[in-house]
């Protein structure tokens, strides 16, 4: 009796320990995502006005496109992406759909900021995490059988973060609304709904076993295609081209912003994979806190402002950290994870994806019989071509004349690199990026 029960117990304990490790990995990925997504704003601050927001978005998305192909090729190789697509080809549709949702939401935020100002617009579209929690619960069994303590932690944490974000947005807004308030509120709410709904494809892909590195390569076709269509539709091809040519000296900074954003987004994808969208999204929404740190410490944005502004910043930051802590300490219980697995099995059955593949990928392992990823000469060529584009634009870039505080900048860069190193190492050791 005892000898038969012992291996069973040991297997169950191993599963529980693996699951706990993956949860911690997801939380760490969420933190790292917040830091890198927030830092993505820094290069864009080097760009002075004179370029339309639509052109700025398009140039950033071009940088994002290059990064979304070169980083996965560098980390795992495109053979791994092809293998993923062969196993679950239907997910390409969701990846492109998610990219389109992102581009439309991003464009709506431009209108929202213009019409009602950042301080009102940001909290409205930041509600996307609440919608993410709702979709996660409704469609993917997240927070099912989680108990009131975890519900309070996740929902309460997300709400506290929204309040903190509101305070930070009020403190960081430079000017008041410019009119058309009704239109601006609709634009901000619309962006929140689009971004919140974008997490449905994310979660669907990761429950079915797709690697985040594969998902983002197709996501970016939707992102670039929709952004190009919107930019051409709004500006016209010839004026847009003229504007892009005139912006040659700042293209590098904007593309660099896009590149940094992709690193943050990759960690956000791993967070969504290992802790679900209900927890992963609020954690990575801490990017606003990091963005403000860059703004205040490096660019001196609040210099000379009133003490009440600083009080708002301190209060908002504390609330953000409190909310992040509440979400981070509400990791999924064993019962909830069983419900996640049920959702994953349902997806596998519906689309004919092998159950062992789905299960292995949920555990961050390679499936049995799956070939080890390898890089070919094409992958290196892809990386070299993307790097060459960045180098060419770097040679054209002009360093703007503005006062920067290099000490805090060095500290923030060091913090980013430490987080990148720790999180990458943890992902590599635990999952080999599967």
């Amino acid at each position, binding site marked *: 009796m005892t000898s038969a029960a012992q291996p069973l117990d040991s297997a169950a304990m191993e599963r529980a320990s693996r699951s706990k490790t993956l949860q911690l990995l997801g939380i760490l990925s969420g933190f790292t995502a917040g830091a890198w997504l927030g830092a993505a704003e820094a290069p864009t601050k080097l760009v002075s006005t004179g370029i339309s927001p639509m052109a700025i978005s398009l140039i950033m998305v071009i940088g994002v496109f290059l990064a979304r192909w070169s980083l996965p090729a560098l980390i795992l190789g495109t053979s791994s992406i092809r293998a993923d697509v062969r196993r679950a080809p239907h997910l390409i549709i969701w990846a492109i*759909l998610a990219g389109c949702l992102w581009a439309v939401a991003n464009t709506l935020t431009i209108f929202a900021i213009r019409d009602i100002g950042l301080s009102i617009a940001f909290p409205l579209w930041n509600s996307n995490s609440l919608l993410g929690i709702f*979709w996660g619960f409704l469609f993917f069994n997240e927070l099912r059988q989680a108990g009131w303590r975890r519900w309070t932690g996740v929902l309460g944490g997300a709400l506290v973060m929204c309040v903190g974000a509101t305070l930070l947005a009020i403190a960081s807004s430079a000017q008041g609304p410019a009119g058309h308030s009704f239109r601006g509120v609709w634009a901000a709410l619309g962006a929140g*709904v689009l971004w919140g*709904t974008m997490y449905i494809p994310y979660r669907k892909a990761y429950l079915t076993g797709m690697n985040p590195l594969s998902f983002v390569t197709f996501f970016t076709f939707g992102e670039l295609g929709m952004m190009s269509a919107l930019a051409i539709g709004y500006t016209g091809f010839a004026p847009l081209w003229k504007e892009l040519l005139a912006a040659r000296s700042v293209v590098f900074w904007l593309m660099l912003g896009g590149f940094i954003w992709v690193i943050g987004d990759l960690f956000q994808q791993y967070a969504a994979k290992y802790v679900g969208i209900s927890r992963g999204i609020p954690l990575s929404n801490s990017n606003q806190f990091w963005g403000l740190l860059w703004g205040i410490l490096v660019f001196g944005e609040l210099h000379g402002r009133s003490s009440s502004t600083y009080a708002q910043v301190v209060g908002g930051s504390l609330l953000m950290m409190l909310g992040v802590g509440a979400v981070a300490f509400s990791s999924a219980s064993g019962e909830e994870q069983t419900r996640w697995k049920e959702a994953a099995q349902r997806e596998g059955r519906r689309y004919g994806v092998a159950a062992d593949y789905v299960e292995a990928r949920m555990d961050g392992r390679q499936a049995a019989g799956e070939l080890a990823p390898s890089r070919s000469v094409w992958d290196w060529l892809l990386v070299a071509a993307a790097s060459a584009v960045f180098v060419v634009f770097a040679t054209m870039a002009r360093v703007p004349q503005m006062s920067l505080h290099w000490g805090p900048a060095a500290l923030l860069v060091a913090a980013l690199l430490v987080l990148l190193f720790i999180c990458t190492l943890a992902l590599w050791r635990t999952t080999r990026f599967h």
Partner: protein
Amino acid sequence: MESIGNKKASASRLSNVLTDVHFWVPVVVLLAGLLLLSFMR
């Protein structure tokens, strides 16, 4: 034979996508977003 099998699998996959609520919710939200953008102009 294999080609017929592949075609059947593709057709069935497409029908699974088109009857999946996870597909239609983002599609509807995307169309609503585009509509909202056109009003913004």
